[in-house]
């Protein structure tokens, strides 16, 4: 596609429910990133995928968060048993390769946990 596509654009859920956020990177981009943007914490790194290498999960805030990338393309970020502090904009980005490349960000998923 022309850009990084994320869905849904908005998600409202109840505390304790699981949510799945989807990211379609730019075709041909081997690197994929998830970041979270919230008022209190700014922009935080969550996880990074590069080709077939093991992902860098060092930014995931708890074991309720997980992500996968199927076939080196689409990625899904899953949050289990959501909490109110999970409310944020979840941004996906991709790049041609990780090294020294600028990131192309999607429009994000606004997650609201009630």
């Amino acid at each position, binding site marked *: 596609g022309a850009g990084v596509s994320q869905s849904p654009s908005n998600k409202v859920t109840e505390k304790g429910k699981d949510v799945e956020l989807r990211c379609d990177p730019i075709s041909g981009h081997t*690197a994929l*990133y998830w970041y979270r943007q919230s008022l209190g914490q*700014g*922009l*935080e*790194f969550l996880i*990074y995928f*590069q080709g077939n290498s093991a992902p*860098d999960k*060092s*930014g995931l805030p708890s074991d309720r968060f997980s992500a996968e990338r199927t076939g080196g393309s689409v990625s899904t970020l899953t949050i289990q048993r959501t909490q109110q502090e999970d409310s944020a904009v979840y*941004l996906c*980005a991709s*790049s041609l390769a*990780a*090294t*020294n*490349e*600028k*990131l*192309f*960000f*999607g*429009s*994000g998923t606004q997650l609201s946990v009630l």
Partner: protein
Amino acid sequence: ELKVEQNPLFLSMQEGKNYTIYCNYSTTSDRLYWYRQDPGKSLESLFVLLSNGAVKQEGRLMASLDTKARLSTLHITAAVHDLSATYFCAVDVTGSGSRLTFGEGTQLTVNP
């Protein structure tokens, strides 16, 4: 722990004026990025600075990197209203570009 600090956090300026946004970081790195974010929108890459002394310019914006001072600047020349946005710097210490640490952002408002 890497800290990235931007100054100022809020900037209101008049059209036609010049100003500089500063980005300080606490750990050695020679990779620094600038992004722009419009309200309700996602981030757009402005500059990628990959070495000490790197300078890049695009239109009314110019970014530079001093790795010894651990400082990057984003200079705005003759500001116009369309530059109103939030500007973020981000630092990579992994050497691979795999993980960026972002500053808090500078919210710029350019008034007519």
